[in-house]
């Protein structure tokens, strides 16, 4: 039952092959059976069964929407009313949100069933899920390896077929990199496409919610329900959301794909390089014309990102003070000691490191040299993309330079860890949409991701290309061996 796609479930529910309550029990049992993955922080069984009953009622009344009755999991960064929302942090270990994030509200209204909240790198800072207060997550393809991050729990859940789909968020690659590491389809839409209301903020000018699914078709269906204007997010866009599902079938003939020279440099694993070259051949076979392009300033995206993201984080995370919600230390002498001890005990090492970097680059005497300099580079990077898109409709390349690495392999070396975002972070800096689709396996049987980058607000082309690619390849249909 769990091997079916979201669309097959929707079809089966409508035909009455099984009820949503049965489907929900099936996935809840699977989650419990595979609890060793440590993919979830909270299981919301009671809520799920309640939502399942309501979905069954809607289905019986023929009032179901396409997503009604489909189970999902939310990254524990989305606020869920009455449900623990930790953001992977000790400082929110007891935080039960009083409201729903807009994304959660939209998917509830569509009739989806929330199975639980997924594990993640603390405050979405990380590329391996090892920075969670609730422990690392195992990659279903090889349990000694990381699932990627920061949406590592969401990726592990969907890869292990513990739910058909999951929400995630992406600030520098946090949907696309775990999607690549776990053999999934993951989309980060354009900045402003999806409401950030109720998403716990990390870097507000870069954060964007999105979807992790098994196919571009499934991702398109959920993305359609998450997108659109929200007056509660001042950066939310009022542009019309296209019919993503209708566009999937469009032939690719005549489309132009840019290959950035810089994304095919030394340093990319040879197996990945080969898989991406093969994927490009598939696209060419489908009528896509390939042109070489340049993104000369994207070389600087990692340094630029690691100024701007920590700077915004140091400001956003100032709200955690032990006064209004969350963890408060029991061990203090006065107010300022209470703040300091609460934050020192409440945040993990990587979060503190980024707060320190952010505070430093914003501090007096360094602001121009680092923060303003990085903002200028951000414009150059965004302009590189604008110029490249004069020659092509989409940009393709690898999602990551390596496949999933071992748990513990890079956790002692922050700089090494940061380089995971080398192909993804420039997309966030420019605010563009990005998609990762499975494109093969390396010598160790680990999934490889193909990244497709689009013009601003052109999620349609990405999903279209992703879907057509998946009609002619079967990389997305593989399931980890012991989880079938």
């Amino acid at each position, binding site marked *: 039952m769990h091997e079916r796609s979201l669309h097959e479930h929707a079809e089966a529910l409508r035909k009455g092959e099984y009820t949503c309550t049965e489907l929900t029990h099936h996935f809840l049992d699977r989650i419990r059976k595979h609890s060793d993955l440590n993919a979830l922080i909270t299981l919301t069984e009671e809520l799920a069964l309640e939502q399942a009953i309501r979905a069954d009622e809607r289905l019986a009344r023929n009032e179901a929407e396409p997503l009604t009755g489909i189970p999902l999991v939310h990254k524990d960064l989305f606020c869920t009313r009455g449900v623990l929302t930790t953001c992977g942090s000790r400082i929110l270990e007891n935080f039960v949100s009083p409201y729903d994030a807009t994304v959660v509200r939209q998917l509830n209204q569509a009739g989806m069933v929330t199975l639980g909240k997924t594990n993640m790198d603390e405050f979405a800072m990380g590329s391996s899920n090892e920075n969670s207060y609730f422990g690392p997550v195992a990659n279903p393809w090889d349990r000694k390896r990381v699932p990627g991050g920061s949406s590592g729990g969401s990726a592990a859940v969907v890869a292990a077929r513990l739910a058909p789909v999951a929400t995630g968020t992406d600030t520098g690659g946090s949907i696309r990199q775990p999607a690549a590491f776990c053999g999934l389809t993951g989309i980060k839409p354009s900045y402003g496409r999806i409401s950030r209301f109720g998403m716990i903020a990390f870097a507000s000018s870069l954060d964007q919610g999105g979807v992790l699914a098994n196919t571009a078709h499934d991702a398109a269906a959920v993305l359609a329900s998450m997108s659109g204007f929200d007056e509660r997010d001042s950066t939310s866009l009022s542009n019309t959301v296209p019919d993503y599902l209708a566009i999937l079938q469009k032939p690719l003939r005549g489309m132009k794909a840019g290959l950035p020279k810089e994304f095919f440099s030394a340093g990319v694993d040879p197996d990945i390089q080969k898989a991406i070259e093969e994927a490009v051949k598939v696209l060419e076979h489908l009528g896509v014309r390939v042109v070489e392009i340049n993104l000369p300033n994207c070389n600087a995206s990692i340094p630029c990102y690691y100024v701007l993201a920590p700077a915004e984080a140091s400001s956003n995370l100032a709200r955690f003070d032990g006064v209004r919600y969350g963890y408060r230390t029991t061990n203090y002498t006065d107010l300022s000691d209470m703040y300091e001890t609460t934050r020192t005990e409440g945040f993990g090492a990587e979060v503190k490191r980024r707060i320190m970097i952010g505070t*430093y680059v914003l501090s007096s005497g360094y602001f121009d040299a680092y923060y303003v300099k990085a903002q200028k580079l951000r414009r150059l990077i965004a302009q590189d993309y604008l110029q490249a898109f004069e020659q092509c409709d989409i940009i393709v390349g690898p999602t990551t330079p390596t496949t999933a690495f071992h748990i513990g392999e890079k956790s002692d070396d*922050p700089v090494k860890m940061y380089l995971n975002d080398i192909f993804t972070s420039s997309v966030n800096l420019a605010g563009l949409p990005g998609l990762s689709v499975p494109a093969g396996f390396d010598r160790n049987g680990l999934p490889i991701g193909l990244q497709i980058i689009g013009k601003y607000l052109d999620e349609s082309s990405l999903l279209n290309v992703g879907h057509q690619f998946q009609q002619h390849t079967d990389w997305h249909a593989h399931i980890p061996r012991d989880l079938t």
Partner: protein
Amino acid sequence: MLSQKSVVFSVSQRQMMPDSVCIRMTITVEDIRHIASLARLGANDESVEQYAEQLNRIMCLIEQMNQIDTSCVEPMAHPQDMTLRFRDDEVVESDQRKVHLALAPETGSGLYLVPQVIEQDA
């Protein structure tokens, strides 16, 4: 601009941070203590040393920004070239004082409680 021979894009850490590129002021333990106090984070002697080592390495990575000339470039704060949207000044939220106070570690008389900050008269 980056030269053709530049190796900064390579994934290997050694190549990412050629020693010759990283010419910068070192962050000292005193700097770390100052930053930590601005950020309201505790820093004991051991963690100060560790922060200094790690931040210096991260700043070496960040210094690579200086390889690119940005002298005539306007800073970009945001992916959207738009001004902030305003809403009408109308009350839309209901009073949720009790709901929000219930989340706090310590409250009293409908207020958040913190350790005493103003000394009482003798």
